[in-house]
């Protein structure tokens, strides 16, 4: 947020921090929260989007239409959470090594997806094989991305392992 003549700084006063240890009331069904931190979540984000697109869009529509935002959309939010947990569960069961390599690379490279394509290719291939989820760029023509033009020295290795 750069301050300038046309964008003066908001006044800051000393912050104090609010915590709230009371749990949700018991009439709201409780779902587990997602335990993945930022790098694994970014790595799995396209696969979560591939499987959970209806729930996510439902939630976003509800949020945009509701008056109070959070309170009206708890049910849709629970569905979103459960679906994302299921995707992460499946990835951990089937493709854990490739997943860990990819998010390890992302964590090293400032969460820049374009710097970790070499580790992303095996992950995409493994997830496409075991989970039938393909990475698709939203708002594009919808071609699935399984293979980011892996270099030829690498392609045969990936192919031999995952695309028999």
């Amino acid at each position, binding site marked *: 947020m750069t301050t300038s003549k046309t964008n003066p700084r908001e006044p800051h006063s*000393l*912050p104090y921090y609010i915590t709230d240890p009371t*749990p949700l009331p018991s009439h709201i069904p409780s779902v587990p929260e*997602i*335990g993945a931190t*930022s790098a694994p979540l970014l790595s799995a984000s396209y696969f979560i989007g591939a499987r959970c697109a209806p729930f996510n869009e439902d939630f976003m529509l509800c949020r945009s239409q509701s008056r109070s935002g959070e309170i009206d959309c708890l049910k849709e939010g629970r569905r979103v959470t459960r679906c994302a947990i299921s995707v992460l569960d499946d990835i951990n069961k089937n493709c854990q090594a490739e997943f860990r390599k990819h998010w390890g690379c992302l964590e090293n490279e400032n969460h820049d997806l374009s710097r970790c394509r070499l580790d992303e290719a095996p992950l995409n291939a493994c997830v496409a094989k075991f989970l039938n989820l393909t990475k698709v760029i939203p708002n594009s023509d919808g071609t699935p991305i399984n293979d980011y033009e892996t270099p030829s020295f690498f392609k045969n290795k990936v192919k031999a392992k995952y695309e028999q």
Partner: protein
Amino acid sequence: MIPFEALLPYGVIIIMFGVAGTGMSAAKLLREGGNKPRVHRDAWDKMMMERDMRLTKEYRKQSDEPIAPEEFKTSSVWRASRIWDD
């Protein structure tokens, strides 16, 4: 032929630069847990890193478990500022 004593100061300068650079790099890696430092952090990155801290209790430690520990549900922290109205 230049006597080797004349090149010793250059060696000292190069070694000092090397030690300084290595020391800085090692200090940064030690802080970030073996990764390169995060740069160009925007509000989203700051929010996610704060969430990571709440999940794993360590700076830049990641976890890929699907389900969070139970205390994560009530560990959120909101920042407010005081308003004096007098």
